């Protein structure tokens, strides 16, 4: 119908024209890039650690540990001989943050496997783990050499195993590694959550604007309230798809040049956890399908919230239950990433309110049977129809109401009466 089309066009054009949209279009990739960067930094405990190795050994163990630590991108180490006031002065340096910490190595390290680390942050697991591994490597090599094993044999024996992981999808082995699947799932989760929330709230404020300015009276005397709500949701939905297109293109460019960008920070592609996955057509389709499903479901609720509120302030409060549904789905993503096939994950991908995030995350993280997707989509569509039906009734009554926000009992009456 022409009038619905006019509503869609107005929503789309006015939003595309706003500075806000272009700020999001440009800052979006930066924002997601920042999330990417922070995740990798948090994963490794944040930057290069400056540490001092206090060498109280009689043999070469301390020197070898220092050398090996310097071979790692995580540490910058210097060795000092143990002495009367060394520990006190180093403690002071850690206190002044000139130093991350210091390692005290004695002969006991080789004999009984004991060493001591004193630092400002001893709960940084990545740092401690790396230290332990380094000391362990040196100590076990020294022990073997003591028993008369050829150092070259020791070196060969210590070549680590690299487990290559490939995802099986649709009966074929894909080129995707576990790390790629993980980062894809992670990103899809973040983007879905952000976009559904953002555009849902867009629908809400648009509804609220028409309500508070009373334009809605003129509109509703020209087209049915449901048509108006539909046009609005479609218009904002079209804006979000357009936004994705912009993000998609700029993300591609950003990823293509990531080596230049990250390389400048001395990181290269040292970290295997976050890698650029191949986004297949099927993955893109799942993403868009569930995004749209989630967007329709949530924006119907946000529209109802807008219609029942009389001011921005009231709306902000009233939208909290709706936002929390989305936040919970987002948080549960982290549990799902560990085991995408668990009962917990399957349940969440069938509940319509969490499915829009859960399903694409599981899809990206692991393989999914077609019937599960079909079932989840069927439930989602049914929920969209049901929720929209209820929301449209709240919308219709709420748009003409002013004054106090309705309580639950009144809402039920609105739904019945409309």
């Amino acid at each position: 119908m022409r009038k619905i089309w006019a509503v869609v066009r107005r929503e789309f054009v006015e939003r595309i024209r706003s500075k806000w949209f272009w700020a999001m279009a440009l800052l979006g990739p930066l924002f997601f890039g920042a999330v990417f960067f922070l995740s990798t930094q948090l994963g490794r405990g944040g930057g290069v650690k400056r540490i001092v190795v206090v060498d109280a050994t009689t043999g070469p163990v301390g020197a070898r540990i220092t050398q090996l630590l310097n071979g790692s991108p995580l540490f910058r180490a210097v060795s000092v001989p143990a002495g009367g006031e060394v520990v006190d002065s180093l403690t002071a340096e850690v206190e002044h943050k000139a130093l991350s910490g210091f390692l005290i190595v004695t002969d006991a390290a080789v004999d009984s496997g004991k060493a001591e680390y004193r630092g400002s942050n001893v709960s940084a697991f990545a740092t401690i783990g790396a230290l332990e591994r380094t000391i362990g490597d040196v100590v076990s090599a020294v022990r073997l050499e003591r028993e008369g094993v050829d150092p070259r044999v020791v070196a060969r024996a210590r070549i680590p195993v690299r487990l290559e992981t490939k995802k099986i999808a649709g009966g074929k082995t894909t080129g995707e590694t576990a790390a790629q699947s993980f980062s894809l799932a992670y990103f899809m989760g973040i983007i879905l959550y952000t976009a559904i929330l953002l555009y849902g709230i867009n629908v809400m404020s648009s509804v609220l604007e028409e309500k508070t300015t009373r334009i809605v009276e003129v509109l509703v005397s020209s087209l049915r309230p449901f048509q108006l709500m539909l046009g609005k949701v479609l218009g904002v939905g079209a804006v979000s798809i357009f936004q994705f297109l912009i993000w998609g293109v700029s993300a591609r460019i950003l990823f293509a040049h990531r080596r230049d960008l990250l390389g400048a920070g001395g990181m290269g592609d040292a970290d295997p956890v976050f890698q650029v996955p191949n986004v297949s057509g099927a993955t893109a389709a799942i993403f868009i399908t569930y995004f749209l499903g989630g967007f329709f479901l949530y924006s119907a609720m946000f529209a109802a919230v807008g219609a029942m509120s009389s001011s921005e302030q009231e709306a902000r409060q009233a939208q909290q239950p709706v936002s929390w549904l989305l936040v919970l789905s987002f948080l549960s993503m982290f549990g799902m990433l560990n085991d995408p096939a668990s009962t917990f994950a399957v349940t969440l991908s069938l509940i319509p309110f969490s499915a829009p995030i859960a399903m694409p995350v599981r899809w990206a993280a692991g393989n999914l049977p077609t019937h599960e997707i079909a079932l989840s989509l069927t439930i989602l569509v049914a929920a969209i129809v049901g929720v929209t039906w209820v929301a449209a009734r709240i919308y219709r009554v709420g748009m003409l109401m002013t004054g106090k926000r309705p309580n639950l009992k009144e809402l039920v009456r609105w739904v019945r009466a409309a």
Partner: protein
Amino acid sequence: MMSPAPILVLDRVSKRFAGHTAVDDLSLSVPAGVIYGLLGPNGAGKTTTIRMIMDILQPDGGTVRLFGEPGGGRTHSERIGYLPEERGLYRKMRVLDVLVFLGEMKGVDRRRARQRAGEWLERLGLADWRLRRIDELSKGMQQKVQFISTMLHDPDLVILDEPFSGLDPVNAQVMKDTVLDLRSRGKTILFSTHIMEQAERLCEQLCIIARGRKLVDGPLSDIKRTHGGHHLVIGFDGSVGGAAQVFADKRLTSKVDNYGQYAELELAAGVDAQRILHALVASGARLSRFEMREASLHKIFIDLVGPEAARTEGEPT
């Protein structure tokens, strides 16, 4: 005289909200080509009635017919201009874009809407503002933009809810001129107001409601005749002639207060004052003054509604 076919008919329309009846069994008929007033104190049900005509609210009982066809305001929205009591526009949109959009809502295609909006903006002196955002306009300018949005699609029926409330004097004049201009082009105007003086000057027909019920409706002159009584003030210039006989004629007058050179009388029901003038002149009286004095609509309104109800009540919505 044949009255033209009604353009709007309400037949026993009712609307109840939780706890109270906003409109109760209201019937009225608006002929084509008149200025029709829907009068009543605040909270009488005027806005609710208009919203039911516009299909914004569904009546709980009764029917609304427009242009002699079934279907309410939404079905006929192409032919109706509606200005709600509380007004607002999209604050961030450009003037021209708002008008084009609202025109589209009334079924005008974009190109025509753009052209007509341009003409109207020109006419109301806003041509230079067409590409500015609504929130850059003064309140008075915004009100003008709102009129334009109501008239853009050249509606046959214009429904204005308290059109003069909140207008500055300049815009009140623009509004009045617009209403009269529409009337002269054969359009029908229905407007609601609680200000009787306004209604008295503009309306040809009206309906007075209070507490959701109709008290009286019909042409203003009929209402004045039946409810106001007709008051005649006569001054003599020396010769009274046979005035006493004329005054005593119970077919002509119902009440006389004669001071000799000055008299006040009330006409008998259905009597045309011209007959008395004629009779007086024929009897040889010389008149210095002959003045019909009608009760004001305000007085009729107070008499009908009662001073209690005439006082402002809170709107139900």
